[in-house]
């Protein structure tokens, strides 16, 4: 057999003609495998791991407080084996992969991930002018035990034009070697009453793609 090109395809030599059926089987299986690999890569791009958490009802945050458990219900998740929620105390995390200590961790694709959240916030009583409304995303590496990235948006509340709204988007390079936990924390400094995060808030993660592709011809 002669090898053709660099995808492992081949053709028979004159002395191989007695084995044409076997050749066609091997050729067909090789083409099948090569195309299946390409199709898997393309479909992987078209369905990159993505999840969106939401709050189905208003979530009240008492006066001068914060909540890291606003978004608790998946509105969408196309990668439920690697993106899940985990409740630790009063915090609901979005997890990528398994947390630390797992013998065989569920890995997630290494590379760039984008995260974001929206919180539309409205006081349930008296609004104290010039108090803050804040939304923060924090990414924690369970193995390192530390925050690897934190970003927030904040504004000052005004009675007019309610609700007040904060919106965060960020990108982080993740190794995929062990799990990370991501939390969205909504907080405010209104002292005269609590503040509701209105229903329909969103907290999401999506895989942007690898940053270290090495192709060997």
């Amino acid at each position: 057999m002669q090898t053709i090109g660099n995808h492992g395809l081949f053709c028979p030599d004159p002395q191989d003609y007695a084995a044409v059926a076997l050749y066609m089987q091997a050729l067909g299986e090789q083409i099948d495998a090569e195309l299946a690999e390409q199709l898997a890569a393309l479909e992987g791009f078209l369905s990159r791991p993505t999840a969106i958490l939401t709050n189905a009802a208003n979530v009240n945050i008492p006066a001068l407080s914060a909540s890291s458990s606003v978004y608790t219900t998946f509105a969408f998740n196309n990668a439920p084996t690697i993106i899940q929620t985990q409740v630790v105390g009063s915090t609901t995390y979005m997890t990528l992969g398994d947390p630390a200590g797992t013998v065989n961790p569920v890995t997630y694709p290494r590379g760039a991930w984008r995260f974001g959240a929206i919180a539309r916030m409205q006081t349930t009583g008296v609004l104290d002018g010039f108090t803050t409304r804040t939304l923060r995303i924090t990414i924690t590496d369970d193995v390192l035990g530390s925050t690897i990235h934190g970003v927030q948006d904040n504004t000052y509340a005004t009675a007019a034009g309610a609700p007040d709204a904060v919106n965060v988007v960020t990108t982080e390079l993740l190794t995929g070697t062990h799990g990370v936990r991501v939390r969205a924390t909504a907080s405010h400094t209104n002292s005269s009453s609590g503040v509701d995060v209105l229903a329909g808030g969103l907290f999401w993660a999506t895989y942007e793609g690898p940053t270290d592709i090495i192709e060997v011809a």
Partner: protein
Amino acid sequence: MPGFTPNFAIEYPCAGEVIDAAVFQTFADDVEAALAQVDAANAAVLQRPRGQKLLDPGQSIATTVLTTLNYTSTVYATGITDTATGFTIVSDGVYMVTLQCLDFTLVASNDYWSARILRTGTTVYQRKLFANTTPQHHMNVGGLLTCVAGDTLSSQYQWQGGGGPVTVLARFSASKVCDL
């Protein structure tokens, strides 16, 4: 009995079968069908539904009036229907939707300014910032949204203050991330 490959069911002859031109034709047809399947996925990767609208010159907006932005041009629109106020979704999916606004009018006072993204008339993304009379109020809003065919994407701007109206420029984009 012929055999078939595991993923694309490419038919091949087994030992002892008569191999004639028809066998080669079937083999080639099956390879062609497999290539077409990969081509379709490749085209889907290269032609993601996406669009961008531009509002320039700007739109005049009076104080306190929650105003739908009417875009003046379409920068691009592929696999998505562009409208005067934004987009209509053609293909179900998760979309990244972003809105950038610039209000460059100097006003006497400004209590707040706010921009919103709406899906089929309901606010889904919003930012609202506190007063500043300095001109050039920049505002970026956006994130992921699940959408189904027929959903509309539009945007609104609102401000409150003295003087005005303000003139708002905007850029509104939607890009499909993945299927539902």
